[in-house]
């Protein structure tokens, strides 16, 4: 579904991503892990188009090898949503002065079916959003905002969902629920998920594959079952 090849990215002078390769197979949940500041968020931003990449390719769609897919690096940020990519950024990034409902409605434009209705499913998933429909996004508590951010990404009914630490600040039972939803969407709608997550239990429970990053490079990858304590010790502890 998403194939990243030899990606390099810079912030001014500093080289943040180095020759990075990553495969995100369709209908699975791939979890990117790594210590603070290794470039996980940067990678997500590159996929979304928020940051420019120096070189490398990001192929979206197509088959296993990426053939028939589309090179995202040449696509503008605003076109990617229409291709079916939903994004839950780190730090929530909700629109603080729009109401909860308006926040959700923003995504409607990118829906493939042109529907003008917010899917009921989102309210079912996060009842608090329905309750607070008319409250400004910025007034919500941190966790509520996070739920809103996820709900907003689901509005466009994405084919690929990018989640940057989605569980952050959310109460445990809802975190679990989010995990369940992800699984359900993967199974029912054949959704593909690219997940950044630090919390091992969560990753282990809901991801299919993992990739570990260190200092801007991908240093390990595999099925989640292969994520050994050794790897963790090597790459995820200081």
């Amino acid at each position: 579904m998403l194939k990243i090849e030899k990606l390099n990215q810079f912030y001014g002078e500093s080289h943040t991503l180095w020759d990075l390769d990553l495969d995100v197979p369709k209908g699975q949940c791939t979890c990117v892990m790594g210590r603070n500041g290794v470039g996980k968020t940067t990678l997500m931003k590159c996929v979304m188009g928020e940051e420019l990449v120096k070189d490398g390719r990001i192929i979206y769609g197509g088959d296993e090898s990426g053939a028939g897919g589309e090179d995202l690096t040449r696509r503008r940020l605003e076109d990617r949503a229409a291709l079916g990519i939903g994004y839950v950024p780190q730090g929530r990034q909700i629109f603080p002065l729009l109401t909860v409902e308006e926040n959700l409605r923003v995504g409607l434009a990118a829906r493939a079916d042109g529907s003008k209705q917010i899917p009921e499913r989102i309210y079912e998933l996060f009842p608090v959003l329905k309750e607070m429909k008319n409250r400004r996004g910025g007034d919500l508590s941190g966790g509520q905002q996070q739920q809103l951010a996820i709900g907003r990404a689901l509005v466009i009914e994405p084919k690929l969902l990018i989640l940057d630490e989605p569980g952050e600040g959310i109460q445990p039972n809802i975190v679990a629920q989010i995990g369940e939803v992800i699984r359900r969407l993967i199974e029912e709608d054949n959704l593909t998920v690219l997940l950044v997550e630090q919390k091992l239990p969560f990753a282990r429970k809901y991801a299919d594959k993992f990739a570990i990053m260190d200092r801007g490079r991908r240093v390990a990858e595999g099925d989640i079952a292969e994520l050994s304590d050794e790897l963790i010790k090597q790459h995820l502890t200081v």
Partner: protein
Amino acid sequence: MSTTNTSYSQSWLTRPFTERSTQIFLGVLFAAMAVVTFLHVAMPQDSALYVSSYTVTLLGKYLCYALLAVAVDLVWGYLGILSLGHGAFFALGGYAMGMYLMRQIGDRGVYGDPVLPDFMVFLNWESLPWYWHGFDMAWFAFVMVLLAPGILALVFGFLAFRSRVTGVYLSIITQALTFALMLAFFRNEMGFGGNNGLTDFKDILGFDLRTDATRLGLFLATGVALAIGYVICRAIVGSKLGRVSVACRDAEARTRFIGYRVERVQLFVFVVSAMLAGVAGSLYVPQVGIINPSEFSPLFSIEIVVWVALGGRATLYGAVIGALIVNYAKTVFTGVMPDAWLFALGALFVLVTVFLPKGIAGLLPGFRKKQQDDDPKTTGTEREATA
């Protein structure tokens, strides 16, 4: 990094002198002053290198504007307060000086009244209004040059900062302030000469304002004032207080939570800046020969901000560069292309904005990347310290 950690251990006032940028600035400034003085005094009048007293005065005026721009940069660049009313402080300093100069005219006015300035005789004022007393004494007038803008800034700032007025709201009330003062000074009842303002000055501290020597003296005094003002601003900016200012600029609420009284920091810097503006105004008046309410005009204050932005915000020397360039450009353009100079000036503003995001100072070698150009505060959509 020019703010190396070692410099933190210096005294706040001596620190600027150890900084590269200040050394260069002062060097260039004093060298320029020396050259101008030499060319003015030592060159024969018909030499191509001769600097006429017209030019000397013109340069003196630019330096006043430069000091004013530095004052604005201090509050805008480092404190995040976009003052659209700094012309008010400039004008108040100017009026204080103008009142002194008026009193110095004595009985040499057209009506020959020994006490009343001409415009008062002319409008049948019986006696000098109370607030004109004392301005016959130079020391008093010079104190007022600092106090008048200082106190206005203190009162205004106290109210505004205490109420936590920020961003555009603050900008607009500074604008309202200068606008209101402009209208008030226009009123003849105010006793400041109405629209005509104060003119026809004769001498300052006993020196005839029309002599070349006095002009040169005023030019040099302005240069020194600019140097001192610059160093004071540098000292503040380089001190811990300067860093707190930047903190207030970028995250006012957060600064409070670590224990700084933001409103006092703002007030202090604002008052210092207003006083510097007042000094600039006071030196400006004897050199241009008139002070009138149009210096309070909101558009003039906006223009000052434009100089700073053009030169490069939050650098101080950028403000100086901006003021010099814009005003020099005005002098030249209004002379050589009187019908089209606004196109040139307008285009200059647009081009600099689009192509030089850091202002002209950004072109200088060694410009610090650290200078932040945009200030989320004034957009009205600040996002900080939120849940």
